[in-house]
């Protein structure tokens, strides 16, 4: 197809709405007679709940409903149902929900919440993931063996391990014995927060006929409905979940979050809307966070500089609940080797409960964390061998014909990390200018990620024409800035030859009205929804052709769609689409066809489960997106501060659907990556389990003033066989390699290695001082 719309730098279709403030977010929606909810949260990291007395709170002024674990001892969780709506027998982190109240005003709710009396019996807390796997460790979930789960995760009853994925390929032990050089290092990544502009907010109402309606800031309306039904034992027919505009999610609004608490309160007071809007502090300690990681890598290389043996031991700090996090653990397992071909592999990805904030999905789904380890390790080994890190990577990287850690042989459609490395290395040929008083350096890191989703994760769409020929495209993925609405419009315009202004993407998904979509996660929307739009467009086209064939007395094979008309390529005739969108009426009045509309879906094809003992699988995931980033930095040897001067990013995206949007994704990802690389860390007090920096004063993320001096985005286009016009996912990948590239640049600049993220000025300075002391 000679693309006219796909590949063009068209502006966002929802840009005007967002910049004018017309866009409505959940908290903007004025709900009639709405009550305000407040959650009572545990002050203890680990305690038995002896008693919860709601009496005083229930009698407080303005209070309309109270609820606790006694009323709703129901389990919830997307992959592992290890959490209850409210704590029942014990609390597992500072912030665990114990009870909630709904009142006429936020103030009344807060005052009443303070009147809830909870009797705790504090228990020893597990706050360090490394201790969680030791014999005799405090058990966070003694009932682990009894929880419901999906078949493809493997919790170990009687331990803190909520999932363990083993990857065994070749003969690691033998290969290691034969290695010419062996290197072992341990890397640490702290828990971090998503920090979306819009905090979590959910509202619920049970109407007097018994129907539950939920309005929520979420990435997955259908999954929220599904999990709510499972939790409260409701029929999907009686639950409606809708999502207004979402002000950022980054994984933190995937799965299910505040919805069960809002629903529990709503069930207590039928007819009233109950809205739970948490505050920024709660967002930091009570909403989900990214999991922490302790990664130990062992690399054995031969004399030529080829890795022959690779061991990867990933210990994930899942926090108090692993409902979603267990799948991060799994994804990190089957991707444990990153962008490289390792012939002999021993990989273990282990999820461990602790009494810390709850881990969950976060842009990259474990990949930035493991790349922090993998990409530094590759650099370290290259330097130990006296080899150029770029050459060393090229010698060992994946590519067509190479085997991943799970034994999948990549084909020619898989994307080319080698080309991305070359592109970055080329940009690096420019000499690094000296800057007085600063140490300059550059570093590179690669990235890979596959979508982590169930094998049947679906996206569906509905296309329907209006009377005037405007095409409505209903999609149920969430567009929180990545540009789904715009690319959906581009694909529809492309397939039907319509101008973009004649297309409206209807995208405030409502499970009562919108087509099914599993979740907006895993960098899957452009790919999955894009495919579904193309398929539905073909079906619309077929309906037009069927009518036109009768109107023009021409066989369907002779028809073509051109400039808003169906044209008979063999004869003279043509019919405008506008004459057919509601069916075609002949001059004598008889009518054929009808309103043109079509539904279609996309489901990944041919995915196969992993072998339970070795994780080998010929096709464990739908696609891989590879890339590389190079960073040039300046280090201040007096303060340890790092200034990022230049970032060069290159990804093999199959097809650039929209150059402006993909640049935006790349720059945004890089800056988010710099945030985690340079400054972000949830500081959890080692004694009390409290988050010490639960505010935007104390937890910093980058602002526009932290943008690198130069940012370049390059793209390779090796078409994805099952991608819409060859496109594959990119949303998460842009932040995966950034911290590792930063650490490698730091080493290049001043010869120090820091293995625990983030690279704060203080750590850099101390490392420099330690190095000077040794010299």
């Amino acid at each position, binding site marked *: 197809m000679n693309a006219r719309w796909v590949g063009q730098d068209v502006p966002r279709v929802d840009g005007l709405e967002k910049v004018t403030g017309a866009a409505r977010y959940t908290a903007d929606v004025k709900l009639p007679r709405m009550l305000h909810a407040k959650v009572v949260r545990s002050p203890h990291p680990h305690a038995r709940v002896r008693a919860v007395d709601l009496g005083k709170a229930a009698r407080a002024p303005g209070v309309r409903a109270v609820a606790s674990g006694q009323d709703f001892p129901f389990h919830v969780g997307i992959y592992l149902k290890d959490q209850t709506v409210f704590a029942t027998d014990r609390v597992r982190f500072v912030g665990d929900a114990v009870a909630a109240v709904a009142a006429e005003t936020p103030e009344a709710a807060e005052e009443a919440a303070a009147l809830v009396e909870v009797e705790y019996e504090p228990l020893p807390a597990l706050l360090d993931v490394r201790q969680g796997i030791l014999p005799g460790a405090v058990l966070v979930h003694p009932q682990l063996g009894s929880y419901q789960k999906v078949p493809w995760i493997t919790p170990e009853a009687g331990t803190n391990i909520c999932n363990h994925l083993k990857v065994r390929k070749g003969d690691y032990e033998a290969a290691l014995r034969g290695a010419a050089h062996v290197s072992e290092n341990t890397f640490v990544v702290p828990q971090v927060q998503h920090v979306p502009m819009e905090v979590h907010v959910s509202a619920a109402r049970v109407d007097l006929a018994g129907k539950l309606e939920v309005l929520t800031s979420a990435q997955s309306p259908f999954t929220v409905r599904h999990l709510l039904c499972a939790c409260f034992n409701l029929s999907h027919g009686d639950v409606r979940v809708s999502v207004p505009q979402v002000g950022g999610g980054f994984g933190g609004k995937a799965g299910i979050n505040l919805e069960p608490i809002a629903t529990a309160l709503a069930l207590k007071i039928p007819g009233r809307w109950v809205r739970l809007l948490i505050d920024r*502090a709660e967002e930091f300690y009570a909403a989900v966070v990214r999991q922490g990681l302790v990664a130990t890598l062992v690399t054995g290389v031969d004399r030529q500089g080829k890795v022959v043996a690779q061991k990867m031991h990933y210990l994930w700090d899942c926090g108090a609940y692993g409902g979603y996090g267990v799948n991060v653990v799994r994804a990190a397992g089957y991707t444990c080797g990153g962008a490289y071909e390792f012939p002999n592999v021993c990989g273990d990805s282990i999820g461990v409960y602790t009494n810390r904030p709850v881990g969950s999905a976060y842009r990259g789904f474990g990949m930035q964390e493991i790349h922090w380890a993998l990409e530094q390790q590759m650099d370290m080994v290259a330097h130990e061998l006296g080899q150029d890190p770029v050459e060393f990577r090229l010698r060992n990287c994946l590519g067509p014909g190479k085997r991943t850690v799970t034994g999948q042989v990549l084909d020619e459609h898989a994307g080319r990390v080698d080309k991305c490395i070359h592109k970055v290395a080329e940009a690096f040929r420019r000499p690094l200018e000296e800057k007085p008083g600063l140490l300059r350096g550059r570093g590179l890191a690669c990235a890979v990620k596959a979508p982590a989703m169930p094998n049947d994760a679906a996206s569906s769409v509905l296309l329907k024409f209006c009377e005037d020929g405007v095409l409505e495209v209903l999609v149920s993925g969430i567009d929180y800035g990545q540009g789904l609405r715009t690319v959906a419009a581009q694909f529809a315009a492309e397939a039907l030859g319509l101008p973009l202004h004649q297309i409206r993407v209807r995208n405030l998904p409502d499970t009562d009205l919108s087509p099914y979509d599993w979740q907006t996660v895993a960098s899957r929307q452009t790919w999955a929804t894009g495919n579904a739009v193309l398929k539905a467009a073909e079906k619309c086209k077929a309906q037009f052709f069927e009518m036109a064939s009768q109107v023009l007395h021409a066989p369907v094979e002779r028809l073509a769609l051109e400039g808003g008309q169906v044209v008979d390529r063999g004869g003279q005739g043509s019919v405008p689409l506008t004459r057919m969108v509601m069916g075609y009426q002949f001059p004598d009045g008889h009518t054929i066809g009808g309103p043109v509309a079509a539904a279609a879906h996309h489901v990944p094809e041919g995915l196969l489960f992993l072998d339970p003992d070795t994780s080998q699988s010929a096709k464990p995931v739908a696609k891989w997106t590879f890339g590389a980033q190079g960073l040039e930095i300046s280090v201040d040897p007096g*303060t340890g501060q790092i200034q990022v001067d230049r970032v060069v990013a290159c990804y093999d995206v199959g097809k650039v659907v929209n150059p402006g949007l993909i640049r935006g994704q790349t720059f945004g990802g890089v800056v988010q990556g710099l945030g985690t690389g340079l400054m972000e860390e949830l500081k959890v007090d080692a004694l009390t389990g409290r988050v010490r920096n639960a505010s935007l004063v104390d937890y910093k993320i980058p602002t526009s003033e932290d943008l690198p001096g130069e940012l370049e985005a390059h793209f390779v286009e090796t078409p994805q066989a099952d991608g819409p016009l060859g496109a594959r996912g990119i949303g998460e990948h842009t932040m995966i390699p950034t911290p590792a590239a930063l650490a490698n640049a730091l080493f290049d600049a001043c010869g120090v290695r820091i293995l625990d993220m983030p690279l704060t000025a203080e750590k850099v300075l101390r490392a420099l001082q330690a190095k000077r002391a040794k010299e």
Partner: protein
Amino acid sequence: MLRRFEYTQARSVEEALALWQGSPDSRYLAGGTDLIPRARATGRAPARLVDVKAVPELDQVRALPDGGLSIGAAASVARVATAPEVRQRFPVLATCCQALGSYPLRQRATVAGNICNASPCADTAAALLDLDAVVVASGPRGVRRVSIHELFVGPGQTSLERGELVTAIELPAASAGARGQLGRLTRRQGVDIATVAVLVTVLPAGSLRHRVALLSVSPTPMRVAEAENLLDQKGPDGAAEAAAIARAACRPIDDVRGSASYRRDMVGVLLERAVHALAAERGGRGA
């Protein structure tokens, strides 16, 4: 959560004082950028807020007959940072104002609020300490003039008496023309409280007297007289020695922004750099 409070607005200093007296738990409100977030975070609000922004005389930045400058308590940080009198004659204060918070924040925040809040990291305090400012306060017992050096008592604590309203901050004529260098270390480039800040100021040509102020390394913003004396004697050659003195004089703590030992080290590094930058600047101007 922000608790309910009574909001009142004064039109004159007298009215402000009277409104304050009218409730047992009153607070003056300027930009509110410290007061309101704190009330929200702690869940405790004063019973009554007395807004002083509408008092006309508090809004002025004006030259004093003796060559000094008076900054009204309701003048915003942005206004002070850009006022020609400040930029030309007291550029050190403009520099510190410019370092505070973000563009929108500076439109609301006031210099008076910054020092009355008495945080160890109050940016404008560094300039006011170096320039020997005087705080003018009106209270139930009349008007008082308090040296900035006597204002700060501890974190969040000043020597102002109950009910005293700061009406103006005065910069003495003797400080006019002073030049300074601010070294300010933050975790990110913009909108961050200083992990450490060091302001080194040289009083106008002729005297070449030094001033050294430190932020975020002791319970209050502080000056280091001993380091100043040394710089007065040795000039830039004394930078390293002055740095050592300042490192010893400060009393930093560990917190989420940085450790005490890192802060102490940075006091030295920033001080030396500021001294050399000042010398280079003077050299460049041929003074």
